[in-house]
C-alpha cells in the first residue's frame, strides 16, 4: 500500500464512521455536524484521487452551504440541545435493508476490482474541468442552470409566509 492508499483508507474510515453517526445519533444537530465531518472526509478523498476542483466544490457547496442550510433549518424547527427520543421508526427493517444494500454493493465492487492498482490519472484541475464542461457538456450545463433558477424561484415561493395557499 502506498501513502495515497493509507490516506484513502483513513479518510474512508472517517467518512463511514461519521456517516454512521449521521444516521444513528439521536441528537439532531450532532447529526448535521457529523455530516460536515463525513463530507469533509469525502472531499479529502477527492483530493487524494486528484479531483482537485471537485474537492473544493465539495467544501464550498456542501460544507459551506448545504450543511449550513440543514443546520439552520434544524435550529429553526426548535431542535433540543440534548437527545430526542422520537427521531427513528422502530424495527429492524431499515438497518437490514441499508446494510444489505451497502454490503452487497461493496461485495460487488470488491469482486469487480480486487486488489488492482491504478496509476494516478491527470489531475482534475479547474482548467481541465472547465474545458470539459464547455466543450462536451454545454447543453447539460445550461439545463442545470435553468433548473437552479427554477429551484431558487420555487424555494422562495414555497417559503413565503404570505403566499398563495
Amino acid at each position, binding site marked *: 500500500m502506498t501513502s495515497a492508499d493509507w490516506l484513502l483508507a483513513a479518510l474512508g474510515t472517517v467518512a463511514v464512521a461519521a456517516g454512521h453517526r449521521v444516521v444513528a445519533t439521536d*441528537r439532531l*444537530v*450532532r447529526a448535521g*455536524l457529523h455530516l*460536515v465531518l463525513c463530507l469533509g472526509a469525502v472531499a479529502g478523498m477527492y483530493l487524494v484521487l486528484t479531483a*482537485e*476542483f471537485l474537492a*473544493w*466544490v465539495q*467544501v*464550498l457547496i456542501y*460544507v*459551506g*452551504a448545504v*450543511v*449550513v*442550510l440543514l*443546520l*439552520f433549518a434544524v*435550529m*429553526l424547527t426548535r*431542535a433540543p*440541545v*440534548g437527545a430526542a427520543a422520537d427521531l427513528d421508526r422502530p424495527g429492524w427493517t431499515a438497518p437490514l435493508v441499508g446494510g444489505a444494500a451497502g454490503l452487497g454493493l461493496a461485495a460487488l465492487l470488491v469482486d469487480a476490482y480486487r486488489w488492482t492498482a491504478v496509476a494516478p490519472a491527470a489531475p482534475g*484541475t*479547474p*482548467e481541465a474541468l472547465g474545458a470539459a464542461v464547455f466543450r462536451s457538456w454545454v447543453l447539460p450545463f445550461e439545463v442545470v442552470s435553468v433548473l437552479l433558477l427554477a429551484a431558487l424561484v420555487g424555494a422562495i415561493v414555497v417559503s413565503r409566509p404570505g403566499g398563495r395557499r
Partner: protein
Amino acid sequence: MSLAELGLRVALVVVAFLTLPLVVGQAEHKVMAHMQGRLGPMYAGGFHGWAQLLADGVKFAQKEDLIPRGADGPVFRLAPAVALLPYLVVLLVIPLGPGDLVAQPLDAGLFFALAVLGVGVVSLLMAAWASANKYSLLGGLRGAAQLLGYELPLVLSAASVAMAAGTLSLPGIVAAWRPWWLLWQLPALLVFFTAALAEIRRPPFDMPIADSELVFGYLTEYTGLRFALFLLAEYVGIVVVAALTTVLFLGGWKGPFADASLGWLWTLLKVFAVSFAVIWLRVATPRLREDQLQRLCWQALVPVALGQLVLTAAVVTAT
C-alpha cells in the same frame, strides 16, 4: 519542495498567524482610541501600552473555563478551534512576494481560499447551538443568514478578478494585475471589501454578536481561553480579508519600485492599510439593522457584482 522546506514554510505561516493579528489588534486599540479623542492603553509594557494584548492574553488564560450545564460539551469546546482553522489554512496560499514567496502555491488558490472561508460559518453555528442559550442561538441564526447571503457577492466579485486575470491562482492574479485595474475593478473591490467585512462579522456588520441586542450573540457563554480564541479568530479574519483584498484588487507585491526585492514589504504595507480601513469603518459606522443588512446584500451588492461580472466579461472578450 522538500519536506523540511514545507515545514519551514508552514512554521513561518504559523508565526505570521500569531503575530499579525496582535499587531492589528493593538492598532485597533490605539487607532480607535485616537479617533474617539482618547489615548487607549498606555501602561502595559511601558511605551504606549504595546503589551496590552499580551496582558489580555494572560488575563484570559487565568479566567475560569465555564461550560453551561445545559450545553453540548464537546461541540461547545470544539467550536473555537473550528473558527480558527480555516483562517490558518487560507494564510497558506496567500502570496507575500513574487516568485516563491508563498507557503503553498496552489493552482486553484482563490477557489480554495473562498471554499475554506465558507467553513467558518459551521463554527458559528456550533458555538451558537451548543451554548444552549437563546441569545446565542439568535446570534447564530443571524450570523448564518448573514454569512450565507454575503458569500454570494464575495464569490462573484472575486470571480470578476479571476476572469480578468484569466487564472484562479493568487500569484497569477497578482502577476496579471495592472494599475489601471484599480479603476476598472473598483465596483468589484468595494463589493468584495464590504462582503468580506460581513463575512468576518466586523462592525457595521456585527449583528450576530450585537451586544446591545443579543448580550454577546453566539459568544455569550464563552469565557477565558475559548473566548480569546474567538477574538483571535476575529483579528486573523481581518488579516486574511485584508490580504485577500490586497492580492486580488490592490496588486499584491507590486509597488512603486523594487518589486522583486521589496515585494513582501509592499504586500505587508497594503495589508496594514486595508486593516486600518477595517478599523476605521468600525469607528465611523453604526451597526446595520437585520433587514437593512439583507437588503444591502441582495439589492445593492449582488446586482453590482453581477454588473461588474458582465463588464469584465465584455472587456476580456473584446481585448
